[in-house]
C-alpha cells in the first residue's frame, strides 16, 4: 500500500510543528537554525507530496530549489554565529537583549 497525500501532509505538518516549537523555544542559535531546517524540509515534503498528487515534476523541482536556498540561508546564519563567537558574545537567544522586543 502506498501512502496517500494525507499521510504526507500529516507527517509534514508534524515536522512543521516540531520545527516551529524548536525555533520559538530553544535557546541556542545553532538549534534554532536546525529547527528552521526542519521547517523548510517539512515544506519540501508537502511540495513533493502535492507533486505526486498533482502529477508532474514542478513540485520536486521547487523542493530542490528550496534545499539550495535553505543551505545558503543556514550558511549566513552560521557565519553570524561564528562572528558572534569571535566577539565572545554569549550564545543564548534569551540573552540577546541588546535590542528590546
Amino acid at each position: 500500500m502506498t501512502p496517500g497525500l494525507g499521510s504526507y501532509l500529516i507527517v509534514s505538518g508534524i515536522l512543521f510543528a516540531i520545527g516551529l516549537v524548536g525555533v520559538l523555544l530553544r535557546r541556542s542559535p545553532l538549534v534554532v537554525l536546525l529547527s528552521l531546517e526542519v521547517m523548510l524540509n517539512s515544506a519540501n515534503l508537502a511540495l513533493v507530496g502535492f507533486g505526486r498528487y498533482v502529477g508532474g515534476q514542478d513540485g520536486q523541482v521547487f523542493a530542490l530549489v528550496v534545499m539550495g536556498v535553505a543551505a545558503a540561508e543556514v550558511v549566513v546564519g552560521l557565519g553570524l554565529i561564528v562572528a558572534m563567537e569571535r566577539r565572545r558574545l554569549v550564545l543564548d537567544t534569551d540573552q540577546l537583549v541588546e535590542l528590546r522586543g
Partner: protein
Amino acid sequence: MTTPVVQWGALAPDLILLGGAAVLLLVAVLFRDRTARDIAMLVGVGCFVGSAVAVTVIWDHGDGVRAVLDGQFVVDRFANAVRVIVAGSGLLTLMGAYGWARLREHGPEFVAFLLVAAAGMDLMAASNSFVSLFVSLETFSIALYALCAFDTKSSASLESGLKYLILGSIGSVVLVYGAAFLYGATGSFRFDEIAVGVAAEPESLLALAGLALVLGGLGFKIAVVPFHMWTPDVYEGAPTPVTAFMSAATKAAAFAVLVRVLVTAVPAMGDTWKPALAVAAIVTMLFANVVALRQTNVKRMLAYSSVGHAGYLLMALVSGQAGAKALLFYLAVYAATSVGAFTVVAIAERETGRAATIDSLRGWGFSRPVLGGALAIFLLSLAGFPPTAGFLAKLYLFAAAIDAGYTYLALVGVAATVISLGYYLRVGLALYDRRHESGSMLPSAPGTAWAGTCAALAAIVVLWLGIYPPDVLDWAGQAAASLIAAP
C-alpha cells in the same frame, strides 16, 4: 526538445546589477581599503544608473508586457517602475553610505550585497510564479541578513542580522507552505495558471489555506501587524545605511509582488482577501502609529512609522487600478523620504557618536541648517503635509480607496495620520528647540559631504514630487495599467 529562449533584453536591468556584484568580488580580491571602496562605489553607481537606463530603453518595447523565461517572470511596466524605484533607492543609499567608516575595510562586499539585494527585489517584482518569487525573495533576503550584520564590531548589528534571519526564514517557510497548498489545489506554481484553477473552484479549502499562508509569509516581508515584530529591532540594530535601503526598497518590491499575486493569481477569491486586507490595513495603521508615539529612539520611531505606512499601502491593494497607480506613486515618494531621513539620522549618529534619540537631536537643526531642514522636510512628508510629496501620495491613496468603495478605510487612514502627527512633530520641534541652540555651526564630520548631498537630493525629489507630480503620476498610471485593466 527545443532550446529554451532567454529574453536578455527584458532581464538586462537585473543582469547589470548581478554582473556588477560579480565584478565587485574580484575588486575585493585585487584592491585594498580606500581604493577598493572608491572603485566599488563607482561600479555600484554605474550599475544602478545602468539598470535604470536599461529600464527606460525597454519601457516602450512591444506592448510592454512580456513573458520571460517560459512564463516564470513577466516584465511589464509595473515591474519596470519598481525597478526604477529600487535603483533610485540604491543610488541614494550608496551616496549616503560613502563616509561610513566600515566601508574602508569592506567596501566592495557592501556594494556587492546591495547590488544582489536590488537584483533580487527587481526579479521579485517581475515574478510570475511561486518558484521565481521564492528564489528572488531569498536572494534579496539573504543579502539583507548579511547587510544587517555588516558591522561585525557591533553586537547590536550582529544581533539584528540573526533576528532578521530567524524571523525572515519563518516567513519564507510559511510562504513555501502556502505555495505548496495552492499547487495542490491548482496543479501549478504559475500565477496565470493558478488563476484558472482557482476560478474553476473558488470555494476550495486547499486554495484558501494556501492563500492565507502566502499572505502571512509576504506579510512578514512587508511588516504588517501581527507579523511586524521583527521590524523595530532589526531597523534599530542594523547599520543605518542598510536600514535606509531596507525600508525603501524592500517595501516597494514586496508590495509590488503582493499586488501581482492578488491580481493575477487569485482574483477569483477577491471576496475573501479584500475584507481581510482591509482589516489588516485598519489594525496596522492604528497600532503602529499609536506605538510609535511612545518611542524616543528615532530609528525605532521610524521603524514603527514604516509599519504604519505599510498599513496605508494595504489600502491600495483593494482599490483596483487607481489603487495600483497610487501605490507606485506612494512607494516612489516613500523611498526618497525614507532613505533621506535615515541618511540624516546616520549623519547625526556619526557626529554625536551615539544612537539618535529625540533628546540628542535637540537644537541640532540650528547647527546644521541644511541637514536639519532636509530632515524637517522628510518628517513633514511622512506626516503628509503639503507641499511635500507625502501629502499628494496620501491624497491619491485615500481617493482611490474612496472610489473603490472603502470610505471607512480612508477615514481610518486620516485618523491614523492625525495620530502620527504626534511623533513626527515631536522630532521636528526637538530639532528646532530654542533652548538648546548652541549658537555655533558644528564643523561637519569627515565624509559627510556625500551623505549631505544624498539628503539634499532626496529632499529636492520630495518637494518636486509634491509640487509638480504629473510626470511621475503619468508614469505610475502607465505602469498600473500594464498590470490591471481599467474596470
